[in-house]
């Protein structure tokens, strides 16, 4: 999101927040969510896909709602008004092609009406037809939906598959395949959208029922402030606000304070640090390890200020319409161990992974009573799978997987250390000065561990990362 996008969102949400009637405010949030999905989508080199990606986002969202979050006792007509609130803005965006404002909602002119209108009509038919399906066993359908959402995520995150996808989409758009790039698949916020949708489908598959209206569901999945960089809220929490339980009064002071802090972090600190931070371009250019360390620390701070700045902005914007989004960062770099770092870094993602991967996996591994696995192996496996997934969520590349493994290893060692040293640490707490020194050293070690881990995150190839480590530790390699 650019500064201008944030200003436009701020203006829109400020106006929506002024509306006292909860139903009207909810309706406007729904409309804003639909329109901003299109508006915030950046330009895509594949023809019309800056329309089709948001269209697919909304389609998946509505279909997930229809199969997982709609009240089966209510006929689809009961949601007619809210569906209109979603489909009508989609129609407006499609029709804007033939107005002078044909790039108002989308980065380029929307596709021809003979393509966009049937697509909207088809979506409507699917939604209506879903009522019949709901009466049958949906376990298979949920599995298909989960597979589809994960497959798309893998395609987007895996450069070789993204390239193939770009070639395919270019071929059906009548564009040259030769110019296809993996980076063409710029689907705004899909990583977050997929996780929100997956949580709902998985919960539903497990038999958990949480029924919300389509407007509430679209607002939850596509809430504009949280679209590009989270946080990943939980449906039940978010839906409560939209069901009329907005904050009693808009906390403007808090909202603008968060917005100001977020903008300062993102546009001053993070963007300033970007000039000096480690990057794929400069990693091999440093001439001494002093500058190399500085660039690495600058990157560690840049990524934090960038990400947490966006979260502050998202929370501030949410407050403007009376919705309190969950916190995503709680001073992670000040924590004295890697476990606490991960409990305070991108908290909503780690909570999601803990709920849907780590806990079920640990339970599964422990459930084998005939050939029980040792506790340390269970922890090791669970940590590696979980952190590997977090790595893969950023991109299915070797380096991201190593980054995940790096942290899994750190968490595993920390767990072993904690188990072994528990009594001694308790005893150490009785000597406050030494314990403070211990905490300081722990903090330094944790920060260094996290900072060194970022090398895998920033650099694309393992060879580059290894060369950079050599540079960090031994100075310039001839």
């Amino acid at each position, binding site marked *: 999101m650019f500064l201008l996008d944030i200003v436009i969102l701020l203006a829109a949400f400020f106006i929506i927040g002024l509306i006292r009637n909860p139903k009207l405010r909810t309706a406007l949030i729904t409309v804003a969510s639909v329109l901003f999905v299109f508006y915030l989508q950046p330009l895509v080199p594949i023809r019309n896909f800056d329309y089709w990606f948001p269209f697919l986002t909304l389609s998946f969202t509505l279909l997930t709602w229809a199969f997982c979050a709609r009240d089966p006792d209510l006929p689809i007509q009961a949601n007619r008004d809210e569906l209109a609130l979603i489909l009508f803005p989609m129609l407006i965006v499609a029709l804007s092609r033939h107005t002078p404002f044909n790039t108002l909602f989308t980065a380029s002119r929307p596709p021809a009406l003979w393509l966009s209108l049937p697509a909207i009509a088809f979506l409507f038919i699917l939604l209506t037809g879903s009522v019949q399906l709901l009466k049958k066993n949906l376990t298979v359908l949920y599995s298909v939906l989960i597979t589809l959402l994960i497959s798309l995520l893998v395609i987007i995150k895996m450069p070789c598959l993204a390239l193939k996808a770009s070639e395919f989409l270019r071929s059906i758009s009548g564009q040259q395949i030769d110019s296809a790039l993996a980076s063409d698949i710029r689907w705004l916020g899909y990583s977050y959208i997929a996780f929100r949708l997956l949580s709902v489908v998985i919960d539903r598959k497990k038999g958990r029922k949480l029924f919300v209206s389509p407007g509430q569901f679209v607002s939850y999945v596509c809430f504009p402030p949280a679209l590009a960089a989270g946080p990943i809220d939980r449906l039940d929490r978010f839906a409560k606000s939209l069901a009329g339980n907005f904050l009693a009064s808009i906390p403007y002071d808090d909202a603008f304070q968060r917005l100001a802090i977020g903008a300062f972090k993102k546009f001053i600190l993070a963007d300033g640090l970007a000039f000096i931070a480690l990057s794929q*371009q*400069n990693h091999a*250019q440093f*001439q001494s390890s002093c500058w190399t360390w*500085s660039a690495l620390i600058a990157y560690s701070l840049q990524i934090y200020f960038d990400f947490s700045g966006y979260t502050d902005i998202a929370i501030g914007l949410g407050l403007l319409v009376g919705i309190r989004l969950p916190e995503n960062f709680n001073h992670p770099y000040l924590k004295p161990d890697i476990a606490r770092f991960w409990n305070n870094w991108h908290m909503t993602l780690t909570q999601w992974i803990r709920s849907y991967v780590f806990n079920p996996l640990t339970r599964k591994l422990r459930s084998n009573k005939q050939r029980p696995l040792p506790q340390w192996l269970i922890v090791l496996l669970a940590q590696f799978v979980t952190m590997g997934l977090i790595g893969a969520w950023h991109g299915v590349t070797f380096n991201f997987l190593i980054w995940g493994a790096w942290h899994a290893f750190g968490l595993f060692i920390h767990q072993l250390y904690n188990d072994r040293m528990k009594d001694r640490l308790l005893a150490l707490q009785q000597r406050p000065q030494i314990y403070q020194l211990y905490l300081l050293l722990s903090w330094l070690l944790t920060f260094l561990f996290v900072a060194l881990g970022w090398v895998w995150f920033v650099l694309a190839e393992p060879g580059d990362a290894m060369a950079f480590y050599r540079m960090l530790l031994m100075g310039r390699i001839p």
Partner: protein
Amino acid sequence: MRRLLRILLKTLLILAILLAGYTPLQPEPMLGKISFYNGLFPGRERLPFGETPRTAYNFSLSNLNAMFSSHKISGAGKLVSEEIRVVVLGDSSTWGTLLKPEETLAGQLDGKIIELNGTEQTLQVFNLGYPTLSLSKDLLLLNRAMEYQPDLILWPLTMESFPIDKQLATALVADNLKELSTTFQKASISPQWFESEKGTESWWSRSLFSQRRALWDLIRLQLYGFLWAGTGIDQDYPQDYPKPTIDFQADDTFHSISGVYPDELMAWDVLEAGLKTAGDTPILFINEPMLISNGENSDIRYNFYYPVEAYDYWHREFLNRCKSNQWHCQDYWDILPNIVFTNSAIHYNLEGAVVLSEKLMETIPKLLEQ
């Protein structure tokens, strides 16, 4: 909400004060003197210039204070007795397009030892070239360079820097007309072509709003100092680049004029101003090397820049003026073989810089002994 309104009002008030105070105070040039270079970061080997800052860690700006504050000449301090301070002016061939700082002419000369009146002296050479072709730009930089009390000024130049229409076309000059005007005044020279161009700055151009980009450039220059310091990179080095053309159409025009280019359209008076600005410090004018093509129509054109007839006339005129005015001049226009030219008819490689520096090492001691 009331607190918020108070903050908003205070913000607006501060903004109003800033806007009102900025225009009369014009702090931008002075702010350029605040620099991390020559302190936290080493000074730059050459003046800031570039169009691809993200890869070059360098970019063009027009604040002369900032440019010089970032240059290592600002951190050079006072000369010790065994050192001779030399500044090298000129265009992109001096600045060193495609060359690393140590590969440029200044880089090759820096640290060389010469014998003067029986004692050994080390040359402390500063590259003050700037990649645009204009004598006025050179004069502007020379005027600044004099603050650092050089013992010798090397001024490589080429015919393309002389036409009057080139003098103010450079952004660096256009943004520093006032300083150029002062320089001319100090030298008691008032070129006619400059009088008509001086103009005045509008209120709008002096406002904070209008100068926000220039202010941001000052911050950017400091930020890029980190990567300059860490990597020593200050320009983009492409893997491949187009070689200079050697085949030409039968075109004998120079700046749209066929045949000899009239003297009255050349800014010879800038050289006079330069000599007066330098005062007692000797200036060595160097007719810089260029590619002499041997391809199609090479009897009509020497290279992309120059038709034979116009260049030969200017060349004679340059040598005549050197002789009649007793200027120190060196004529190196044809000393380099074509193979050393890189991406332009005046950009030479390290080999070219070595040859040129060796030639100059023969001349510099004689000149300094005079």
